[in-house]
């Protein structure tokens, strides 16, 4: 259960990214989690919620984009359809060994936040 550590890293990245916006109110964070990172999206969302309780960011949603790994045949190069969360041992067509690609993503994709309208700042910008 290291999802709490991962949630802490996400929050620390988000806070750094929002340093130029001191009045921002965080609304939504989107991350990508690969199948081979050993992170469970459901546990990550739970850890995120628990971590944010009582902080200024409380209530901010965490969207987790799941990025599955894929398998393709090393010999014939054809991508294969895997059973969900399962693995094919060998190529169903030629019996050759399969390669695994992708599933290593663990990325902060997008941060959405509310900023108060500031007339005076708009005036200055004109």
């Amino acid at each position, binding site marked *: 259960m290291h999802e709490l550590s991962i949630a802490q890293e996400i929050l620390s990245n988000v806070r750094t990214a929002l340093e130029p916006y001191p009045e921002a109110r965080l609304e939504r964070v989107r991350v990508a989690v690969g199948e*081979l990172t050993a992170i469970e999206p459901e546990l990550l969302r739970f850890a995120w919620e628990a971590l944010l309780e009582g902080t200024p960011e409380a209530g901010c949603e965490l969207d987790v984009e799941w990025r599955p790994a894929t398998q393709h045949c090393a010999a014939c190069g054809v991508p294969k359809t895997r059973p969900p969360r399962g693995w094919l041992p060998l190529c169903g067509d030629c019996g050759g060994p399969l390669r695994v690609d992708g599933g290593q993503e663990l990325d902060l994709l997008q941060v959405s*936040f509310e900023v108060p309208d500031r007339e005076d700042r708009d005036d200055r910008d004109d």
Partner: protein
Amino acid sequence: MTETIDPRQKILAANAEAAAALRTGFAAAGTLVLNLISSPGSGKTTLLEATTRRLRERLRLGCIEGDIATERDADRLRALGIPAFQILTGGACHLDARQVHRALDEAAFPPLDVLFIENVGNLICPTSYDLGEDFKVALLSVTEGDDKPFKYPAIFARAGVTVITESDLLPYTSFDLEAVRRQAATLNPDGVLLVTSTRSGEGIDGWCQVLEDRLAVKRSGAA
């Protein structure tokens, strides 16, 4: 007004940075570094004891031990005459690069040829954290069952070397070694799989040879 920014950055960027700094230091020192990962009780410390007995006359070995509690593992290796530092995580399920950095500062090891980092016993969480190692070692004892690579794909996909331990128990279990070989090869075609037993001695020479070969390659690359 709602605004969005797209950082598109690695969530573990801070750990990656700390790991890169460690890797630079290990390269400058010519130290080969292994990150050993397995379930509790697969035989990480026992393999390190056997390795130490074989190699301690030829190579300068050192060890960082990660555990939730007790200095037991570090004591077992110190008893064999190599420097060992115990990180107590106090409940955390994995080591990260910053902990290793602090441990190295505190341990002040003499120059080492090989540094073993024995992670907290856990087949899942330690997988995510780069510790600046040359390669990860996944251990799997035959009593754990032969379905583990496909059930825990993250570690077996990333381990440079997979070590099957307690091979002397194979006749007493239904462990299908060939099934494990196939699963490991599917997840990680470039990985090495070794079959070992510290009781019978099977595969220990081969394991030690892998360490010496990798050290030689690392040193020749650094020269």
